[in-house]
């Protein structure tokens, strides 16, 4: 494990900061990979009442191991309900029962629109990415969309190559008139800092820098000049308890936290 001088890794910082954004939430739609460990950490810290929903058709999962895939059998055993995917998307997500959901992508723009479809031209792309999966409808129906992504100039871009999942439009009046449960991400957590979205413009705004990270580093790792909160602060580092849960209970093999 490559810890820094303070004794934790970049991933541990990103996961802990992201888990805190779930404080008080009740129903969370979980994605595979980092969101999975984030949600499980939140359930053990800031959101003990959190019900984990998996698009594979599981409500109230209690995974006994960290699943590699989003349809692991451990999600079923001991869960509250197993549903068909039609029911999960229609009755739970589209009907507004999901409070929070995690999304990521190959590209995000300053308004939180996400691309998980192609890099390059659609007809003959440079890189063919997985596509929407449930992301397009999650972006529309989850009451809070939380983004977790590593930051780089090729992923934080001025212009998306394809808009798979809608974020803010840049016109808050338009966003309010959409009538969706959500209407754009509420937070973005990266390996460098945390962002919110400006209420008047819908623009991604840097709120905190992780300990040891500079504003210069943030600027070098995105494709536009970011809006910075006047009250720019420092992200609290992972607590001993967060680190203990991550290392001893959730990811003893160090798959996600290393």
């Amino acid at each position, binding site marked *: 494990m490559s810890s820094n001088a303070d004794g934790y890794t970049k991933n541990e910082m990103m996961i802990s900061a992201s888990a805190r954004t779930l404080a008080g939430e009740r129903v969370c739609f979980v994605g*595979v*990979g980092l969101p999975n460990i984030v949600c499980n950490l939140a359930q053990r810290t800031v959101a003990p009442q959190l019900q984990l929903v998996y*698009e*594979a*058709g*599981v409500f109230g999962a209690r995974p006994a191991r960290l*699943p*590699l*895939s*989003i*349809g*692991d*059998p451990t*999600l*079923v*055993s*001991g869960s509250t309900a*197993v*549903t*068909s*995917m*039609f029911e999960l*998307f*229609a009755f739970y*997500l*589209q009907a507004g029962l999901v409070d929070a959901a995690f999304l990521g992508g190959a590209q995000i723009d300053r308004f939180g629109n996400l691309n998980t*479809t192609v890099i390059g031209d*659609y007809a*003959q*792309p*440079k*890189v*063919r*990415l*997985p*596509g*929407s*999966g*449930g*992301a*397009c*409808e999650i972006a*529309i*129906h989850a009451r809070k969309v939380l983004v977790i992504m590593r930051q780089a100039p090729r992923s934080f871009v001025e212009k998306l190559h*394809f*808009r*798979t*999942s*809608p974020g803010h*439009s840049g016109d808050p009046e338009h966003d309010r008139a*959409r009538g*969706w449960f959500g209407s754009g991400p509420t937070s973005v957590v990266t390996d460098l800092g945390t962002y919110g979205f400006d209420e008047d413009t819908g623009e991604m705004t840097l709120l905190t820098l992780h300990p040891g990270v500079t504003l210069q580093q943030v600027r070098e790792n995105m494709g536009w000049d970011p809006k910075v909160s006047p009250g720019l602060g420092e992200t609290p580092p992972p607590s001993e308890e967060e680190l203990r849960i991550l290392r001893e209970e959730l990811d003893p093999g160090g798959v996600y936290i290393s």
Partner: protein
Amino acid sequence: MSKLATMRDAIAELVRDGDTVAIEGFTHLICFAAGHEIIRQRRRDLTLARMTPDVVYDQMIGAGVARKLIFSWLGNPGVGHLHSVRRRVERHDPGPLELEEYSHFGMVCRYAAGAANLPFFPIRSYYESDIPSVNPNIVPMRSPYDGTEVYVVPPLRPDVTIVHAQRATEDGDTQIWGLLGCQKEAAFAAERVIVVCEEVVPEEVVRRDPNRTVIPGIVVDAVVQEPFGCHPSYAQGYYDRDNAFYLEWENVSKDPETLDSWLKEWVYDLGSHAEYVEKMGAERWEELRPGERLSGQVNYGDYS
């Protein structure tokens, strides 16, 4: 009437060149055994439909059975890419692959419309997304009641749907537990249905627990018993997902020559899935065997 068949006969009779074929199952119960038999019988020009084209479709597309893919998420879950598919799409190597893509809910509702004999299905997805701009089948429409804008998707009626199940009777009454995916919708939507199962059970077993029946024999054309037929996918309570296989697939699929030799060794040179099971070795199956976690029992009541 018994519909029991060998995999070879079921595929030979029910899957034809040019068909639209859906092998469904969301992570769980993906029938690799059927995919391999389709490869062995060298079907061509198939349109493959699946919410999540997974390693099984990477194998089939790498083997050249398909000309088109209908899907909503394309990848090796938790691992990365499907390289056979990417080569076809990005470099047209060895030829282009036509894509028709939806979101997950859009695909589920296509099957639901097919199953319910509806002309389309309305959903609240695709708003302000670029997906409809690359798929003219996704069309905006206003509700005749309150004017709400929805998008509609057309029914998907596969020529053949193949589902794997824990157990079925020889008539095709099929019981599944664990993740249900969209198998019920995909089966009812199809012209022909092949059920592959871990165990063939007497009718009495099904009648004792009718709530667990997902697909009735009335829509099923053939029943094939093929233990471990989902590997490296899994069957809840029977064997675990072989995550190591999914991780290793990245290296197999990346290089066309490695892929070809994998297909030769594990598909073309074997006569059946039983030979695959034997070749994989008893130790592997032992490693994948889960512990026991039984459900409780309910009282359906005796009303005689």
